[in-house]
């Protein structure tokens, strides 16, 4: 799965957790989940769990703590997909 496809899928994961749908439409790898999308930190674990289901991967603790920027999320998801391929 290429980075563009991962990003498209990731938007679906983030939809329930942000009010800022306009910003979500235009997210880039530099978009910050909390500062830019105004996602409450209490939802970060939900996002990890939903991403695990969406991509059929397991995200470990060490990876989870890096998932603040969209680019980091894509890096981690891409790594996990490659590991499970």
């Amino acid at each position, binding site marked *: 799965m290429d980075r563009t496809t991962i990003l498209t899928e990731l938007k679906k994961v983030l939809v329930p957790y942000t009010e800022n749908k306009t910003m979500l439409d235009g997210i880039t790898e530099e978009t910050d989940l909390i500062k830019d999308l105004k996602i409450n930190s*209490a939802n970060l674990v939900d996002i990890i*769990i939903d991403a695990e289901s969406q991509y059929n991967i397991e995200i470990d*603790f060490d990876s*989870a*703590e890096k998932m603040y920027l969209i680019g980091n999320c894509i890096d981690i998801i891409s790594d996990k997909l490659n590991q499970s391929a």
Partner: protein
Amino acid sequence: MISTGNDIVALDLTDIKRTEQGRFYTQILSNSEQKLYQQVSCPQLPFNQYVWLLWSAKESAYKYLKRLTPELVFSPTQIIIQSLKAPNRSGNDVNVTLWESTCDGEFYSGTIVHLSSTLYFRSKTSASWIATVVDQNESFKNIYWGVKSITENSVESQSAEARYFLIDKLRPYFNDLHFKKSLIGYPVIFNNGNELNIPVSIAHHGNYVSYSFVLDQAKLLSDNCEVDWTA
């Protein structure tokens, strides 16, 4: 350098079933914290609320420590709740402003460890929310902490209401307050354009907002309000 940190969780926005799933709570709780729940006698604290109480304590500690260590990344399982005591009156020294007039002044309390840092926390639970404040001193002297409900719960409203709530509390001491965000992301307050050396923390979730700040009121009064609070 002094700091402060607080957090609030709106329980109606949490998913009880999901919270109780291992793959969810193990992203928040360390092994020792999972065992701690069995050791602490808190029959009034269901496991899902225990998870969110510890989350709020960890998030509060992160906010406190981030001000001192800007490069810190929030990793819930690395901020360890070492002890937790059932509600008691040890929190009476916290200047809590709670919107619920029935507040009994009883708080959960305990210690938090991150690397070489030890912090103390006070947490309050209600049917609707769980809130926590942390400090480096067990006495919580000079710590002010407030929680209230709001009606409009868009993210923008939550943020604005939290700032108003805090400013309202500080207004007796300062007459021209406004907020900025530091480059790291924590709030900084200014009075008459000068940055104040008063650490503040705000939190919001759903229909609840909260604040904490550190203010040596005795010093403020003894200096006849001539003390220089600018940073």
